[in-house]
C-alpha cells in the first residue's frame, strides 16, 4: 500500500474511504471458513440461543426460576461476572511487558490479550443483565438518562470502569487492526496514550469489583482488605492462563508461528501471582480458623460444613486441590516449554480460580445470612443455561475477532488486495 508517497489529505481520505471495504471484508471473513470453524460457530450459536431462550423465560416468569433466595441473593451470574472481570484484567499482563518493558516479542501478540479483554467485558455486561430483576429498566442505570448514584454506589463505578475498559480496548484493537490492514505504521499518538491508560484501568476494574463486596460491613466474609489484592493476584493467573490457551489454539489452527517468549513470560507471571494468591488464602484461613467465633462460621461452613449443611465443601476442596496442583505444574520446568504440562496447568488454574470466585467467594458471603440463617444455594438449570449461553456468546465474539485479526496480521487481508 505504500508504493506511492501520499499527501496528508490523501492519506486521510484513503483511511476513511477504505473503511467500508474493511468492514465488509471482515464480515465475509467472519462468515466463511473451514467445516471445523462452521461447526464450532454453529454449536456456539445453538448454546447461545438456548441461553437466550432461558433468559427470556426468566424475564417473563420471574427470577423464581433461579436457585437464589432472599438469603443467598446473588448466585452463578454474579460469580461468573466476577470471574470474567478477572479474565479481562488479566490481559494487562501482556500489555505491561509489551509496552513498559519493551518486550518486542510480546508486542507481536499483545493484541490477543486485548481481544480477550473485549470478549470478557462483553460477558461481564451480559452477566449483569442476566442478574437484573428488571432488565427493561436498564436505562435507569445510564448516566444522563436515568439516575446515576455516582460516586456513592460502587456499582456505578463498576459500570463506568467496565464500559471504559471496553471502549479503550475496542479503540486500541480496532486502530491497530485497521492500520495494519491499510499497511501503515500505527501512529503512536493514536494508541500509546490509550494503552498506558488501559494499564491503570485494568487494575481499576478488578479493584472496583472487589470494592463492591468488601465495602459491605454487614458481610464479614467479604469485609476484608485482602479482597482486592486477592482479586488481582488471581486475575493475573486466570487471565494469562486463558490467553496461553487461546494462543495454542491459534497456533494449531492458523499455524501462526508465534515466538516462544511471550508464553514463557506469562507462565513466569502466573507463578508469582499464584503464589501470592495462595499466600493470601492461607492468611485468610488462619484468621478465620484461629480466631474462631461466628465470624469464622463461613469458613467452617465452606471447609467442613456447619450444622449438617455442607453444600460448598466439595467445591471448596476441589478449588484448593485444582489450585495447588496447577501451581505445582506451573513450577515444573516443562511448563516453560510448549507442551501438555503447560496447558494442563493453565486449565487447572482456570478451573480452580473459577470456583474460588464463585462457590468460594460470592456464595459463601451469604452463608450464614446476616441474621445467621443457614440457607444453601445451588444453581438452577435456568442459571446454568444462561451462563453457558453467555460463555458461548463470549467465545463467538472472541473467535470472530481473532479470525479477522489473524487474517490481517498474517498479511492475508490488506487494502492492497481489495478487488
Amino acid at each position, binding site marked *: 500500500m505504500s508504493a506511492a508517497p501520499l499527501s496528508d489529505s490523501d492519506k486521510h481520505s484513503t483511511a476513511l474511504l477504505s473503511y467500508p471495504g474493511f468492514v465488509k471484508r471482515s464480515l465475509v471473513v467472519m462468515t466463511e471458513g473451514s467445516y471445523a470453524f462452521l461447526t464450532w460457530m454453529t454449536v456456539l450459536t445453538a448454546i447461545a440461543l438456548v441461553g437466550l431462550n432461558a433468559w427470556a423465560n426468566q424475564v417473563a416468569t420471574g427470577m423464581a426460576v433461579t436457585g437464589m433466595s432472599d438469603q443467598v441473593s446473588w448466585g452463578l451470574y454474579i460469580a461468573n461476572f466476577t470471574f470474567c472481570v478477572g479474565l479481562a484484567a488479566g490481559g494487562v499482563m501482556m500489555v505491561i511487558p509489551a509496552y513498559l518493558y519493551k518486550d518486542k516479542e510480546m508486542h507481536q501478540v499483545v493484541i490477543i490479550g486485548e481481544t480477550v479483554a473485549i470478549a470478557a467485558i462483553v460477558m461481564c455486561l451480559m452477566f449483569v443483565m442476566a442478574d437484573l430483576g428488571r432488565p427493561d429498566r436498564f436505562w435507569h442505570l445510564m448516566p444522563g438518562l436515568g439516575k446515576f448514584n455516582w460516586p456513592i454506589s460502587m456499582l456505578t463505578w463498576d459500570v463506568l470502569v467496565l464500559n471504559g475498559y471496553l471502549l479503550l480496548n475496542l479503540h486500541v484493537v480496532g486502530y491497530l487492526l485497521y492500520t495494519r490492514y491499510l499497511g501503515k505504521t500505527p501512529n503512536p499518538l493514536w494508541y500509546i496514550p490509550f494503552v498506558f491508560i488501559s494499564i491503570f484501568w485494568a487494575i481499576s476494574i478488578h479493584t472496583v469489583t472487589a470494592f463492591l463486596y468488601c465495602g459491605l460491613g454487614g458481610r464479614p466474609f467479604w469485609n476484608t482488605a485482602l479482597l482486592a489484592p486477592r482479586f488481582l493476584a488471581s486475575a493475573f493467573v486466570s487471565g494469562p492462563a486463558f490467553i496461553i490457551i487461546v494462543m495454542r489454539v491459534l497456533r494449531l489452527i492458523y499455524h501462526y508461528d508465534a515466538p516462544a517468549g511471550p508464553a514463557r513470560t506469562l507462565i513466569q507471571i502466573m507463578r508469582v501471582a499464584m503464589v501470592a494468591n495462595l499466600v493470601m488464602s492461607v492468611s485468610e484461613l488462619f484468621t478465620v480458623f484461629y480466631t474462631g467465633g*461466628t465470624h469464622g462460621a463461613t469458613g467452617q461452613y465452606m471447609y467442613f460444613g456447619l450444622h449438617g449443611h455442607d453444600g460448598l465443601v466439595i467445591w471448596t476442596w476441589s478449588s484448593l486441590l485444582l489450585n495447588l496442583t496447577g501451581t505445582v505444574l506451573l513450577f515444573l520446568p516443562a511448563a516453560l516449554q510448549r507442551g501438555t504440562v503447560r496447558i494442563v496447568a493453565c486449565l487447572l488454574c482456570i478451573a480452580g480460580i473459577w470456583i474460588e470466585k464463585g462457590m468460594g467467594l460470592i456464595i459463601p458471603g451469604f452463608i450464614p445470612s446476616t441474621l*445467621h440463617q443457614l440457607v444453601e444455594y445451588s444453581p438452577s438449570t435456568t442459571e446454568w443455561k444462561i451462563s453457558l449461553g453467555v460463555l458461548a456468546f463470549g467465545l463467538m465474539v472472541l473467535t470472530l475477532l481473532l479470525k479477522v485479526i489473524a487474517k490481517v496480521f498474517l498479511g492475508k487481508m490488506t487494502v492492497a488486495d481489495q478487488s
Partner: protein
Amino acid sequence: MANSNSAQNTPASPELPVVNPTRRKAVKAGFATLGLAAFAAAISPLRSAAKQTSAQAFFQNHYRELSAEDKRKVIARLEAETKEKYGAEVHIADDRPIPGTKFVYAINLSVCNGNGNCVKACHEENNHDRATHQSYIRVLEMDKGSMELGNGDSEYQGVVPKDGKFYLPVQCQQCDEPPCVDVCPVKATWKEEDGIVVIDYNWCIGCRYCEAACPYHARRFNWKQPEIPAEEVNPDQSYLSNRIRPAGVVEKCTYCLHRTRRGKLPACLEACPTGARVFGNILDPESNIRWILENKRVYVLKEELGTKPAFFYYFD
C-alpha cells in the same frame, strides 16, 4: 478457505474448484434466515412479558421527579392494573412525611413472647405473596444469656415462650446511615424526612445490591409476581408502601407509612398482644417512645457497623 461452506451444495459440478458466488450468497442467506428464525423463537417468551408493560410504565420517571399531575396518572394506572390483575378495587394514596416527625420504634424484649402475631399482621397489611408467607418481620428465638445472633433460630416451632429462651423480632431498622441506600446504583431507594427508608418500586432495577448490603436482612426481593386472592388484598394502599409490588424489584418495611403518616400505628404494633412494641415520634417530648429512650437502657443491633438504627431494643 472460503469455499468450503458451500461445497456440499455443489454436487452437480464437482470438477469446479471455484464455488459460484451467487450460490455461496444463497447458502449464507439461508443460514442467516434460519438463525434469525431461531433467534425470534428464543426470545418469544419476552413478547408476552412486553404485553404486560405499557409505554407509560416503561418511560415512567423517578418518583421524586414526578409532578402532582404525573403522580395522579401513575396512581390511576396502578389502580387499574391491580383491578385487572387481581380483581381488587384498591385506593393508592401518596402519603408524604408529616413535618416535624421522626419515627422511631422500640421493642421490650422482656415482654415479647415470640407469638408471631406481628409477622402475620405484616404479611396481611402489606399485601405480601400468600404462598411464600412473606413478611417484613423475622423473629429469632434466642438463648437467654446470649446476644449472639448466630445462636438464634428464626424457624422455631411449638408453644411459646419456651424455657430459657427470649424472642428478638427483626425488621427494617430505618437506619440513619443506611448502607442499602448508599449502594443503590440508580437512587431507587432513599431516606425520607421522617426517617423512613423507602423504595420506588417502579424505578428499582432489581440488582439486589441493597439486599446484600443490609446487615439486618430487612429487604426482600419479588422473585415472582405476588399472588393474593382478591378478597384478601388490603385495598388501603400507598405508592411507597404496601401497594402490591411488581415482580423483579426489592421491597421493604416502611413502618407502615400508609398508616403512620395518617396518625395510625403500624400494623405489627396493633397486632401485638403483649404490648412489647412502642412506636412514635422521637421529636415529640411527650411521646411514649421518648420516655422509653430517656429512661430505659436501650440498645441497637450491630451498633459496631455504624448504621445508626432508628429501632431500639430494651429489657425491663
